[in-house]
């Protein structure tokens, strides 16, 4: 399985993980460990940025783990940029998962504010990974303003519904010149494998691991599924037959003319 080049880093794992919803921070640590994830997103609103002993951050201090602070909670580009700058200073990373969802019910991303913020954050030197709708044009626009990747959703956050946006993801993957990370909605390892087989560069999984009765085992299952999907993609899947083959040739008449 080839490593993933993203921003200024190289990742051996193509499974990115989240930190919310776990029954304890210790369990979160164990699950992330089992997943072998190297990029872990954490909500700025959840951590005490000025407290070195913050309990979430304490459990993420592993050599392998790169922190990916996210702006979940902000509603506008202005708020996102302000929060990002504080995070960069406090957490000493210029990586940022840009999330602007003014709708607290389905947490669907605002494309207009996201594009505005992304452009400004790139200029300010951030490595920006924007969470977006599976909108191929928006993904190209984000690429043009310099985001390091795009993170289109498979389904609403936390819904475990799988790749509801599959046809759109296919177009995004086909057209994108930056890594495509399928984020949100991935509810089962098979969904993750499916995304990887399609050619997604990575997936981000949180709820399906955190809320499982056995998060550690589920994390391992996702790790294996992501690897299997990626390996299958790189090995190239056999072409699927489009339908039954005609029993008598359709063009035999051409020889009779």
């Amino acid at each position, binding site marked *: 399985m080839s490593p993933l080049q993203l921003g200024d880093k190289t990742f051996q794992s193509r499974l990115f993980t989240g930190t919310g919803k776990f029954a304890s921070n210790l369990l979160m640590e164990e699950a992330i460990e089992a997943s072998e994830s190297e990029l872990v997103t954490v909500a*700025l609103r*959840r951590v005490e940025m000025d407290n070195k002993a913050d309990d979430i951050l304490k459990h993420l201090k592993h050599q392998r783990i790169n922190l990916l602070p996210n*702006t979940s*909670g902000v*509603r506008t580009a202005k708020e996102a940029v302000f*929060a990002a700058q504080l995070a960069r200073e406090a957490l000493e990373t210029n990586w940022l998962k840009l999330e602007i969802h003014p709708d*607290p019910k389905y947490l669907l991303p605002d494309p207009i504010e996201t594009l505005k913020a992304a452009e400004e954050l790139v200029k300010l030197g951030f490595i920006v990974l924007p969470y977006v709708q599976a909108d191929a044009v928006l993904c190209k626009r984000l690429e043009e303003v310099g985001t390091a990747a795009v993170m289109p959703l498979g389904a609403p956050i936390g819904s475990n519904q799988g790749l509801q946006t599959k046809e759109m993801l296919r177009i995004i993957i086909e057209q994108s010149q930056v890594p495509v990370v399928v984020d949100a909605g991935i509810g089962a390892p098979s969904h993750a494998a499916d995304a990887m087989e399609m050619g997604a560069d990575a997936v981000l999984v949180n709820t399906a691991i955190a809320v499982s009765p056995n998060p550690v085992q589920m994390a391992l299952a996702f790790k294996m599924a992501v690897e299997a999907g990626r390996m299958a993609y790189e090995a190239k899947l056999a072409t699927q037959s489009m339908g039954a083959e005609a029993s008598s040739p359709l063009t035999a008449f051409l020889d009779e003319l």
Partner: protein
Amino acid sequence: MKTFEEVHATHNWEATKASIYTKTAEDVEKALSRPKPTLEDFKALISPVAEAYIEQMAIKSRAITQQRFGKTIQMYIPLYLSNACANACAYCGFSHDNDIKRITLNKEQVLQEIEVIKNMGFQHLLLVTGEHPKDCGIDYLKEMVEVVKPHFPSVSIEVQPMKEHEYASLIDMGLHTVYVYQETYHKENYKTYHPRGKKSDFSYRLDTPERLGKAHIHKIGIGCLLGLEDWRTDSFFTALHLDYLEKSYWRTKYSISFPRLRPHVGSFQPNVEVNDKQLAQLIMAYRIFNPDVDLSLSTRESKKFRNNMLQLGITAMSAGSKTEPGGYAVYNEALEQFSVADDRSPQEICDMIKTGGYEPVWKDWDHCMQTS
């Protein structure tokens, strides 16, 4: 767009009540099987006949809550700033008619109080006052938000209804959530519980979440006081209100509380009793009806009830609460608004939550998320 008052007016209280009390087992089963329950389904879930389905409701409520919120409980604590009040609410310990010592904390006293609260671990502070324009009006609240803001990433208030521009100015200062309970949606009888003072204006209070939505508040807490009117009908109107607000002010998050009347200074006793099983049914019904709404359970409720409801739909809990101004550090007098039933320390509550397989969440907001 219709106002909620107009929506409210299209629902007759008695007809609504009758439709809840005539729901059948079949209606409940339908409600439980629907992926997205309707308001009619909510009526079925709070109906008397649904009591027989309480176990199925619990299973569903737990699963929905875990998927949406994970295995976490948000922790908060109230800080009573003032018990001065010009209202005469029949059921409230702070009523103007009650002969109690009136206290409004000053800045220095508030700093003493929050030092104790901070040491307990809290990051979400709820400021509470009575309604007294002179002693604890908007200027006082602004001053107090300014005092507590550097110490708490999340600041909420539960105070008198205010004007839209007043809310806007508090939000600009960093206010995150406003709790404002209608007490009862029974328009005609509202006046009997709130005979005098500004609170006697049913319509102004009903319109308050609307003003908050227009001011772009992050979260609004609504609810009715259980024990005044028929609880099922009042709860239906709460759900109707929630449904309206979510559609009208979609940038705002919502929270529901279910305060049950408890003994207090004064002579008012609950008109209707809501027993534990019924309260559990109501909480689960809200959850099944709405997967996203915060459901908050205060220290009014007993230890056993809180321990067991932890997994069944609740998303927020208070702990170690004192319901009198100065109760944490300044005074040790019995001036409380209501008596708490769960008097365990925050550490004990925290241990209980962890033993139940959940993570207490102290911090879930940061002032940096709402720069204006």
